C-alpha cells in the first residue's frame, strides 16, 4: 500500500498543471449542482414529521425507535430542530433541541423527563451512532451548503432517473468520513443515493432514498430511507409519516422551555 501511495504522489508532482485545471472546473460544477439542490429546498420556513426507525442486526433481528421532529428554517445559519422520542419506551418523553451552525459546533440541549432536567450537551460527537442505529448524528443533521467541498464526477442513470454524481468532502471537524458520493436526480435535485467512505477511505455505508412525495411549495421528501452498513452487515430503515409544512411554527417554539412541554 505504501508503495502505491508514494507512486501516486510522484505522479501528482509530475502533472500538477493539468490536474489543477480539471479539478477547479469539476469543483465549480460540483458546487453549482449542490447550490441548485440547496436552493430548491429553501423557503419551507417550518415543517414537522414523525419518523420510525427500524434497526436490523446482521442476523436480521429488529428493534424500533419512534421520534417526532419539528424544524424551523433559519436564514444564513443552520436550522433549529426539536426531536421528541416515543420509543423505546424507556426514553419516552426525552427531547433534544439543536441549533445547528454549519461549520461551527451546534448548540444542543437534552431534556430528561424523569428528573425534569434540561442539560446542555456537547455536539462534538458528530460521527457517533444515533440511538444505536446505522445513522450517525452528522447524517441526520441540518445539511448546509458550506459544510462540504464539492466536486462533479459524472452523469449517470440511477434507477428511473438520470443523475448527477458529485463527491463531497466534509469541511467541518470530527467527521467520520473522508468523503461522500451523492447521486442527485437531474430534474428535481433530490438525493437518490449517498455512499459514505470511512476515515480509511473504504466504503462504509450506502443510503438509498425512495418513495418521494411532493409537498406544497414544491418540496420533495422521501418517505423511506435505507442505510446499509457494508462493513458490519447491519442496516437501518427510516420511515417518515405526517409531513406537515402548513401548521405554523415560530422561532419561539424552539427554546429550552419548549423541551419540557412537548407531547
Amino acid at each position, binding site marked *: 500500500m505504501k508503495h502505491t501511495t508514494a507512486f501516486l504522489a510522484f505522479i501528482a508532482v509530475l502533472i500538477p498543471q493539468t490536474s489543477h485545471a480539471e479539478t477547479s472546473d469539476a469543483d465549480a460544477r460540483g458546487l453549482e449542482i449542490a447550490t441548485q439542490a440547496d436552493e430548491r429546498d429553501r423557503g419551507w420556513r417550518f415543517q*414537522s414529521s*414523525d419518523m*420510525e426507525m427500524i*434497526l436490523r*442486526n446482521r442476523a436480521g433481528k429488529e*428493534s*424500533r425507535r*419512534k421520534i*417526532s421532529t*419539528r424544524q424551523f428554517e433559519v436564514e444564513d445559519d443552520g436550522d433549529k430542530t*426539536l426531536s*421528541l422520542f*416515543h*420509543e*423505546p*419506551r*424507556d*426514553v*419516552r418523553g426525552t427531547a433534544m433541541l439543536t441549533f445547528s451552525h454549519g461549520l461551527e*459546533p451546534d*448548540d444542543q440541549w437534552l431534556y430528561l423527563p424523569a*428528573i*425534569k*432536567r434540561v*442539560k*446542555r*450537551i*456537547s455536539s*462534538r*460527537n458528530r*460521527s*457517533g*451512532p444515533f*440511538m*444505536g442505529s446505522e445513522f450517525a448524528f452528522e447524517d441526520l443533521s441540518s445539511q448546509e451548503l458550506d459544510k462540504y467541498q464539492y466536486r462533479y464526477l459524472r452523469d449517470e442513470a440511477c434507477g428511473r432517473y438520470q443523475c448527477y454524481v458529485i463527491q463531497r468532502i466534509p469541511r467541518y471537524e470530527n467527521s*467520520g468520513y473522508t468523503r461522500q458520493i451523492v447521486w442527485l436526480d437531474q430534474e428535481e435535485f433530490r438525493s437518490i443515493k449517498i455512499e459514505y467512505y470511512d476515515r480509511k477511505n473504504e466504503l462504509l455505508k450506502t443510503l438509498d432514498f425512495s418513495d418521494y412525495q411532493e409537498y406544497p411549495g414544491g418540496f420533495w421528501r422521501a418517505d423511506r430511507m435505507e442505510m446499509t452498513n457494508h462493513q458490519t452487515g447491519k442496516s437501518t430503515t427510516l420511515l417518515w*409519516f*405526517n409531513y406537515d409544512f402548513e401548521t405554523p411554527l*415560530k422561532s*419561539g417554539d424552539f*427554546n*429550552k*422551555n419548549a423541551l419540557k*412541554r*412537548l*407531547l
Partner: protein
Amino acid sequence: MLCAATLGSPVCADLSQQFELSFQGQFFPSLSLDSNDIQEQFFAGVEAEFISDFESDYLIGTFLPYGRIASAGGDMNHVDIRELNLLYTQDKWEGIVGISRVFWGVTESGHLVDIINQTDQLEGFDGEDKLGQTMIRISRLFDQNTVDLYVLPGFREREFLLSDQPLALPFPVSNDKPLYGADNEAQHVDFALRLSGYQGMADYGLSWFSGTSRDPEFIIQPSGAYRPRYPLIHQVGLDLQLTLDSWLWKLEAIHRTFESDTITDDFTAVIGGTEYTIYGLAAALFDLGLLAEWHGDNREDHTTVPMQNDLFTGMRASFSDTQSSEFLAGIFSDLDDGSNSVRVEASRRILDDARITLEAQSFVNVDSRNALSYLKSSDFVLLSLQLFF
C-alpha cells in the same frame, strides 16, 4: 402541538397516557444476621402519566400519581401526587398552577441550587427523587433568557425512614409535629425567582429563594427524640456550565442565610468541576466520560455536613448498542479525613420496553466523626426492573 402520541395516524390524541411498573430488591450485605436490622426488602411501584392538551394550542394538563408497596409494609408503603397541574403557554409568557416538580442546576454528583421540591427520602438513596410541590409559576420568555417567578404555598415536610431501616438517621426522630421558623408554620408561603439562559457556550442560572427551608434542623427533646425544625431561610444560587467541545465545566454555588432564633449558622457551599468525554472508543462501541467535582462548604460541623471538602471522581461509559447500555462508577473522597464511598451503577434495556438497573454502594474507611459514619455498616445493592406501557 406535536401529534406524537399516535405515530402513523393522522390525528392528534387528546389524551396521552403511559404507565411504568417498577420492581426493586434492596440488599444490605454488611448488616449482621443476628440483629433486628433488615437485610433485604422488596418494592413494587406504579407511576402513571396522563397528559392532555384539551385540543387547544395553549393549555396542557398533567396528572402524574405514584404509589408503591413494600415488603416491610406500614410506613414504607408510599403514595404521592408527583404532578397535577395546568400549564398555559403563549409566545412570551408561560404559567403553571398546581402540583409540579422543578429542577435547577448543572452538576452531576450533588445538587445545591435545586430547592423548590422536598426530597423524597423514602424513595431511592441518592436524593434525586422529589415530592410534588404546590405552586404558581409565571415565566417571561426572552430570546435567550427566561425569568421565572414562583409562589409556593403548601410546604411539605420530609418523611424519615424508621430506625430499623438501613440508611435511616442514626437517632430517633420525634413523631411530634415539626417545629417551624415561620409563625404560620406550614402555611407559610414561599417565593422564588430565577433568571436562566444561555449565551454562546455558557448556560447560566441565577436564583433567589425566600421561605421555609426544605432541610430540617433537629431539636433534641427532653425524651431524647430529635424533633425536626424547618427554619426560615433566604438563599441565593448560581449555576453555570461552559460547553467547550469535549469539555463541560460546571459550577453551582449557594449562600444561605437564616432568620433569627435558628441553631444553624449562615453558610456558603460550592460544587465545581468538569466532565471530559472521549468519543467512539473500541471501534465506536462506547463513549467514556471522565468526571471530577469538588464539594466545599464553610460550615465547621463535620458531624452533620457530609460534604465540606470532598472530591467526587467518576467515569461514565455509554454504549452505542441497541440496548443503550450504561455503566457508571464513582468515588467520593473526604479530603480532610480520608473517608470514602464508592458507587457503581449499570443499566441496559431488555426486551423492547423494559430496563434493568443494578446499583451498589459501599462505604470505605469512614472516619467516626464523619457525617457518613452512621451509614458505615449499610453498604447496599439495588436491583431494579422497570416496565413501560
